[in-house]
């Protein structure tokens, strides 16, 4: 797995976008360490592939630290991060795995995440998603729902390459 680019915000921003993603690998992996200005303990980040939110479906399994986990579906990719009223200086952590991102078949993805908050409620989520598109993935963007990511939020984009024998190369 090789780092393509990483970005840590020096000041608040509404969105972080990666463009011209190289097409020389097999899979993508993204790590997100984020907090937003949303006036709540959490916020929902909208994740766009190639700039769109269409032809997407997603199922989420969510635990809150107590009670029975819930499941839900949406028609766009969203995941939970830490909001403005969560414990100070804490950030949500998420990982997104997208196999075969250059291919012409539909794109599947996996998101796993946790939020941080020194209270009874903190989120743990697993998402499975499908983008029905034959286009290779060339750009990714992350946006709060009308909110800003705070300074210090970081998004890193990695690529994973399959070797000639079909197995993943670790370098």
């Amino acid at each position, binding site marked *: 797995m090789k780092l*393509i*680019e990483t*970005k840590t*915000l020096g*000041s608040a*921003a*509404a*969105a*972080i*976008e*990666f*463009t*011209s*993603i*190289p097409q020389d690998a097999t899979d993508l992996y993204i790590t997100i360490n984020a907090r937003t200005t949303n006036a709540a303990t959490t916020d*929902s980040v*909208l994740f766009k592939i190639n700039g769109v*939110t269409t032809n997407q479906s997603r199922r989420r399994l969510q635990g809150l630290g107590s009670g029975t986990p*819930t499941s*839900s579906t*949406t*028609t*766009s990719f*969203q995941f939970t991060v830490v909001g403005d009223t969560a414990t100070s200086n804490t950030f949500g952590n998420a990982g997104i795995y997208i196999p075969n991102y250059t291919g012409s078949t539909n794109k599947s993805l996996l998101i796993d995440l946790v939020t941080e908050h020194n209270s009874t409620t903190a989120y743990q989520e697993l998402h499975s998603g499908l983008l029905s598109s034959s286009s290779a993935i060339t750009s990714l*963007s992350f*946006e709060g*729902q*009308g909110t*800003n990511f705070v300074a210090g939020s970081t998004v890193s*984009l990695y690529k994973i390459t399959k070797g000639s024998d079909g197995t993943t190369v670790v370098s």
Partner: protein
Amino acid sequence: MAKATVEVPTKVIVDCSTGESTIVPLTEEELAQRETDRLAWEAQEATRLAEEEAKATAEASAISKLEALGLTSEEIAALKG
């Protein structure tokens, strides 16, 4: 009196082909799309929360009916799995 300025939200663009990152203000079109996305998300959340609430209400109702039939809380928990 000085005019209050409205700060336009920005986005950070990272060009993976050059490694350069730039900070640009959102365009009118992007601001409109952002509002559309936010409203769509709020509608989805409202639907999800209403469904969860309806499910919780139905479960509470079912439990009270089972209790009225004489089932213990352990028996009800076993039924829920």
